[in-house]
């Protein structure tokens, strides 16, 4: 396989779950290369294995068999600590359910990955967390608790958190699944800006219009990739946002 130009190389990935006597195939022989700077949207019906795939390439889960290289590293040969380092430094993961720490302020949530990165001192950590929050438009909410933030804002905190250690790739499993159209587009705007700066983005979505913001679309069915196509008529989030009817003045201002 061609490792050099690709950030992510997946070969013959298989993942099965044992449910009693039955074997559930979540992934059947998935092979995929993702280039540096790509913006991939993964689509597919429920249960087709999208989340399973994301968790494996996000180094959160192990497959049953297969090979996986990220940034020229043979992931399944690494020990747990090296995997943790990989998650910390090279991958930013975003969940549908936000997964930010409750009763912990926005800025402390964003600081979290840097606490596990010994090269960063307190001063730099605070500065970078603040900068990341600013880049997602949440500077004024830095000291708010998650329960004082809207869903869209919480997801933006999660995005800021995924950014602070300057990852090579951002992986997002249905990042807009719990959000309304405006918040979703705002997230897409952030993603497109990041992608323009060279960060690779892999994202799962159920919504056709969200997939239109990516550069390529991949369709999963039954644990297999069925199509891998370039998006024609790619949408630009900043322009789409202008066309949305103004519903809430405050929402725009934050």
């Amino acid at each position, binding site marked *: 396989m061609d490792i050099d130009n690709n950030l992510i190389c997946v070969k013959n990935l298989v993942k099965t779950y044992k449910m009693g006597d039955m074997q559930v195939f979540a992934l059947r022989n998935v092979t995929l290369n993702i280039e540096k700077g790509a913006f991939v949207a993964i689509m597919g019906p429920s249960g087709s294995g999208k989340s399973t795939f994301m968790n494996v390439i996000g180094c959160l*889960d192990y497959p049953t068999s297969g090979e996986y290289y990220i940034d020229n590293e043979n992931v399944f040969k690494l020990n747990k600590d090296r995997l*943790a*380092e990989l998650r910390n430094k090279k991958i930013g993961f975003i969940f549908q359910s936000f997964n930010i720490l409750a009763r912990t302020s926005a800025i402390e949530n964003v600081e979290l990955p840097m606490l596990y990165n010994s090269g960063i001192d307190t001063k730099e950590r605070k500065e970078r967390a603040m900068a990341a929050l600013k880049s997602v438009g949440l500077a004024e909410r830095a000291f708010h608790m998650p329960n004082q933030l809207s869903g869209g804002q919480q997801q933006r905190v999660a995005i800021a958190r995924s950014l602070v250690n300057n990852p090579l790739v951002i992986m997002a499993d249905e990042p807009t699944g719990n959000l309304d159209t405006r918040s979703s587009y705002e997230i897409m705007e952030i993603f497109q800006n990041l992608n323009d700066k060279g960060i690779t983005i892999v994202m799962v979505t159920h919504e056709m219009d969200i997939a239109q913001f990516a550069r390529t679309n991949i369709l999963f069915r039954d644990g297999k990739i069925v199509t891998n196509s370039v998006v024609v008529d790619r949408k630009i989030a900043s322009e789409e946002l202008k066309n949305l009817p103004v519903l809430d003045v405050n929402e725009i201002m934050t």
Partner: protein
Amino acid sequence: MKLLNLLKIAYRSLSKNKLRVLLTMLGIIIGVASVIAMLAIGQGSKENIQTSMASLGINSVMIYPGSTNQGGVRMGAGSYSTLTLKDVDAINSKCDFVTDVSPVVSKSSQVIAGNQNWHTNVVGGLNQYFKIRDLTVSVGSSFSATDEHTAAKVCVIGQTVSTNLFGENANPVGKFIRINSIPFKVIGLLAVKGQNTFGQDQDDIIIAPFSTVMKRMLSTLYLNSILASAKSENDIDNAKTQISTIIRIQHKLTHADQDDFTVRSQADIAKTFESISNVMTILLACIASISLLVGGIGIMNIMLVSVTERTREIGIRMAVGAKSRDVLFQFIIESIFISVLGGLIGIVLGILIAFLVSYFGKWPVVITGTSILLSFIFSSAVGIFFGWYPAKKASNLNPIDALRFE
């Protein structure tokens, strides 16, 4: 990861659950406080025994009439009439390990001075009695050889007696008191000695010449006890054997006969009490340790609940790059934090309890650095020990399993 960061993480998550942390700590606080207080009380009574031993005359040897276990029935020492002045003379002339000897007789008596009266123990002894018991006369003097010869009606009184008969700070020397209606002249006041190990007031005493008490107050030939002092601390045992041998000869006892007297040194008594107080200390320490153990189990319980409750949090931390050992340390530090802080509060509380006991219970306490250090180390160890399992459990989780946990 840096230790400082770990401490910060542990502090942040603990500060979100203050009440729970406090309740968990309570077990450790009570455990440590009881260890400190118990050891302080135990150590206090031990040192009290040592000092009161020294104040009684460390080399002194007492001879009581009657065996301690005659016919299997224990009788109070002094309920037998076997010792006489001849025994005293024999010890005096034949025991070369003994320096001073004094016969002792005593009678509990009513004492009157003016319109005040007081009930106390009147002891008759020789001049040596003062020396053996390490008593000093602070005002006036003790009696002379002439007083002994003439059975003079003079006495030396303790501070408590003086206070009760003549009032606080009065000088009793030269005044007259009536003991069982017999007038005595007070010629000396004893220096204050305070309570002894058994809580007896050592200043509640009147000492008169032996012959005076024997002839004028008692009508008996027998002694309550004989008091002697060995030449040195090393000679105590020799003196005891020598005295035993001599008195056995004096009493014409055969091999088949048991002693009709008992020889005890001050050191023996102190040793007995020291071993009793040692047993007490160990017992108290055991009880305290058990409460520490229970406190530790409390920590483990809460940490286990905490790990389960915070599985998602662990998953999130792992997803953003926490290694297994980061999670392990976070939870261990949390439990150490609980136990160390609990330990510190417990130490303060224990010292406070010890002082209250000594203040209100009039019981001597000694807080040693070792007991503080020991309970501090022990409580930290409890934190590590009982925090380990829940922490290990948390750190062994897979990121995805932790994140999926409901």
